[in-house]
């Protein structure tokens, strides 16, 4: 008797990613309020670290 393969219930659902892409792509005002740029690049790719400014917290 064989053993069943298991799947991973911690992975997020692809449908939720699509729901988010739709939110970013189809709603014009979803812009990064700190950089003024679109929160995602065209084509849905996420802006990576280059859009972030690094600051140091003073104690």
């Amino acid at each position, binding site marked *: *008797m*064989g*053993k*069943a*393969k*298991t*799947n991973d*219930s*911690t992975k*997020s*659902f*692809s*449908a*939720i*990613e*699509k*729901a*988010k892409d*739709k*939110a*970013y792509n189809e*709603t014009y*005002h*979803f*812009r*990064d*309020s*700190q*950089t003024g*740029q679109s*929160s*995602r690049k065209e084509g849905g790719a*996420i*802006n*990576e*670290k280059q*859009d*972030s*400014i*690094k*600051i*140091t*917290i*003073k*104690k």
Partner: protein
Amino acid sequence: MYSEKDSAREYPEPDDPNENYRSPFRKDYGRLIHSPAFRRLQGKTQLYPGLESDFFRNRLTHSLEVAQIAKSIAIRINSVYKLKVADQINPDICEFAGLAHDLGHPPFGHQGEEALDECLRDFGGFEGNAQTLRILSRIEKRAKGQLETKDNEYRFGLNVCYRSLASILKYDNVIPQVSEDRIESQKNHAIKGFYYSELPLVKTIKTNVAGPDFEGKFKTIECRIMDIADDIAYSTYDLEDGFKAGFYHPVMFFCYPGEVFENVARKVAKAIDGPFSAADVREELLRIFGSIYEFPESSFVKAEGDDKTYFAIEESKAKATFANLTNIAFTASKNLADNGYIRTEFTSGLVGEAVNGVEYFPDPQHPALSKVQLRRDLLIRVEVLKNFTFESQILSPRLKVSEFRGKEIVKEIFKALIDDEGWRLMPADYQRNFHHFLDLPNKYRCIGDFIAGMTDRYAIEFYGRLKSENPETIFKPF
């Protein structure tokens, strides 16, 4: 996995050589599909009243979905566990179980069930699963014996095989005949099981399926598969109905009152037989829907301090940033609920994940009683979704009014039928059975059978004819 005794029937039928092209279980499937009780499922409430929209599931579409999922689970187990032909689970019986499992639901769902149980508490009680067995083995009009002897049970319903009947026996428990025999916690609710009147039949089913020496709780592999399929369907499709109806979308789940989370936690703890808190409910919902709240790093300013890395927001832009992030999460959540393609992909993903998480545990001594179960993380997921959908909606005034009304209608109809000459209000075949049986419990059971068989619409119409002042309804035939 199957013997000749599994395919025996309560009322023996001669072998028909023209029917050898299909198995006895496939015949049972045909008998069920063509039965009036199966068709009536289309008029019975699932969660949302069917009269409100034709998108919502009713008991018929729910049963079709359960049957499809149950059959898929059986086919998958046979395949991934590489079972030999003699050890394989029969998908037809699983499909039958899925189609038949809700036949006994009275009109107005669980409220109708509670109302009938209240009425019949001293006459054997009422419960949906018990009624399903009764419909298949007694009420449906396919096979009958001799009617001559007064008070004998002459009906055999659809006369399906013992193994098919076993596939809907979810609770191996006889319901007490009178209320004083109920334990305290069961005094005010319908008790899951089968009626005392079907006890001899259940004994015969057990002997044929598990053997004469079997002792212990009886539940066949096909019944267990149907049970899991029912939970998967409930957890996913009631959620989808609520999305489509606009009653909620995922981010709203985190805004429900603590009472809902506490109620869900209590039910999940019972189902998984272990501790489960309101916080655990929230965590599981976050595991399912949490990616809605994941935002690109570019939404924040990277900051360092205390040897840690932070995401920061500039004070002057805090309000705009928070508004932006909230709006993204809200819109994504709405998209998941409103967009047909996305919503279908999501529910399909949930069902597929659960079907692939069913584990099989063979019982070499009693193969018919082999076990299946959902992997624990998926069992928790299914139970949280199933109970959250129910608890979040059941408190809404809209459903409360509908429930109250349903319960009142069922009780009033019962009251009218047990009154002097009330039996005259029933159709001729029910009147005949009412007089055939001599004792009060059997007579009241006939009345219960009649009411339980009603669709929501028929019950409202029947009630209207008894109580309304509209004369049109009086002349409509039963």
